[in-house]
């Protein structure tokens, strides 16, 4: 125990040890320290370290901690490899025999991309290539596909005419990145044929100019950027901690209590607000029509008061709102706030158009049911039906709420509380100085 307590005594600041170190050691020899003394010495060392701090030390310590944490984090991240392939699409005009119109080629390519990147197509590639094994264990496949589509899969035009594209896929394993990209390019070729048949345009030829590469060098993570981020975050944290230290040093325990109290109250308020707000889920579907010119009128019909009122009645939506306001107001609220129709692509000279329908609701199953209802209305509308409309992605069943983000709200409340506590303490210090 004595050696442990002597070790604890070394935790005092160097300046303090230079003055009192020998005396303290002699005292420890005399008393024959026990477990209680170990705790007492540790507490004393911590207190002395706190009182010997300076604004510069705090700032430097936090910045160093930020850099170290970011460095360790970035080293813990696996390398990411990007495999790339280049494909070109050309369509022969059946009338002239020459190349088809550029708009038509672009429209064709976008249709191929939409089909290849659709939920069902990517799901089969994920299963076939055994990708995202860990993610699939903890997340629904829907989320995994969204992650793949938005973060790891890219398609970019590389020439001015927009007929050649770089397709890339990112993975931790270079061989898996290459194999997956090969599967994606094969899937594009299959969809190319299907789109040609469906749209009845000229013969589309998809050439693979560069096959899927086997990446030798990792493309990420950018460790320098992560360390830079850690440096910035450490500086901000250091400034905040330095300000707290500066105030508490002048007003001691009362300021610590005040800032802590405000931070706790802010966190409690943030959490209370977050838990009072009901969860909201979004279900989304993607549709494509061969004739985009009729889309605005069809959308207007689907979103009409009669159409939405029928959905509200059928799915028993907004019963509380209906008891307080008229159906007209509830429909308007549903149309303006809860339904989102977004056109993915409408080209002036390309007739086709793809669009997403999403519906936000507090019950995830109801959100899916209503989105499905809206999709059905688009397909069966009687006024001006859309020609050759197909569902690329059917209405999704959301697993996680998109709102509210409770952790962010709690953090925001805590930060606001700390800032308010700091503000009040500074105000009181200024008032005391004036007095």
């Amino acid at each position: 125990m004595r050696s442990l307590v002597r070790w604890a005594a070394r935790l005092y600041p160097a300046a303090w040890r230079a003055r009192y170190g020998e005396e303290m050691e002699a005292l420890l020899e005399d008393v024959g320290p026990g477990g209680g003394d170990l705790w007492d010495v540790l507490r004393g060392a911590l207190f002395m370290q706190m009182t010997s701090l300076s604004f510069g030390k705090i700032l430097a310590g936090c910045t160093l901690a930020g850099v170290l944490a970011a460095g360790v984090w970035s080293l813990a991240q696996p390398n990411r490899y990007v495999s790339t392939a280049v494909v070109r699409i050309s369509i022969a005009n059946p009338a002239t025999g020459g190349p088809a119109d550029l708009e038509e080629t672009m429209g064709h390519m976008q249709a191929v991309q939409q089909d290849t990147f659709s939920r069902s197509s990517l799901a089969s590639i994920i299963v076939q290539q055994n990708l995202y094994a860990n993610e699939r264990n903890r997340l629904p496949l829907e989320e995994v596909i969204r992650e793949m589509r938005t973060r790891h899969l890219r398609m970019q035009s590389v020439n001015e005419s927009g007929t050649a594209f770089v397709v890339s896929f990112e993975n931790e394993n270079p061989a898996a990145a290459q194999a997956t990209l090969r599967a994606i390019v094969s899937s594009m070729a299959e969809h190319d044929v299907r789109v040609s048949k469906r749209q009845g345009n000229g013969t589309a030829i998809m050439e693979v100019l560069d096959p899927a590469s086997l990446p030798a060098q990792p493309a990420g993570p950018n460790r320098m950027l992560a360390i830079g981020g850690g440096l910035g975050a450490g500086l901000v944290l250091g400034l905040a901690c330095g300000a707290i230290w500066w105030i508490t040093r002048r007003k001691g325990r009362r300021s610590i209590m005040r800032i802590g109290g405000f931070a706790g109250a802010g966190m409690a308020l943030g959490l209370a607000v977050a838990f009072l707000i009901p969860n909201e889920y979004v279900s989304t579907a993607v549709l494509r029509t061969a004739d985009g010119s009729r889309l605005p009128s069809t959308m207007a019909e689907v979103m009409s008061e009669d159409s939405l009122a029928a959905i509200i009645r059928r799915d028993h939506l907004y019963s509380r709102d209906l008891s307080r306001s008229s159906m007209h107001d509830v429909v308007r609220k549903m149309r303006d706030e809860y339904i989102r129709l977004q056109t993915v692509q409408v080209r002036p000279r390309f007739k086709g158009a793809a669009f997403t329908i999403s519906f936000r609701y507090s019950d995830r199953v109801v959100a899916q049911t209503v989105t499905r209802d809206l999709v059905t209305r688009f397909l069966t509308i009687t006024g001006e039906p859309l020609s050759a409309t197909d569902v690329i992605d059917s209405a999704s069943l959301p697993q996680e709420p998109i709102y509210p983000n409770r952790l962010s709200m709690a953090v925001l409340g805590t930060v606001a509380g700390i800032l308010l506590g700091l503000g009040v303490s500074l105000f009181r210090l200024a008032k005391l100085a004036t007095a």
Partner: protein
Amino acid sequence: MSDPTLLVLASLAEGEKHGYAMMEDIQRFAGVRLGPGTLYGAITRLEERGWIRGLESDDRRRPYAITGAGRQYLEEQLATLDQVVKTAMRRLRPA
């Protein structure tokens, strides 16, 4: 009374003492055992405020003595405490 600074001042009011002697003395007259960290925390604060001073010594066990300012501070604190004790005792007596 468990304020370590007052206990150290009260111990040194009798005469100069090193750390271990203060610890033993305080335990004897107040029934409180100050840990090494608490004792040296109080000694550091008291020396910074000029209420005690360390004496030159060849031994590692440096003795400390109370200063005039320290004595005055102790007297003021004890007077306040005395007032509190007297009032409390009077109030505790049956009417």
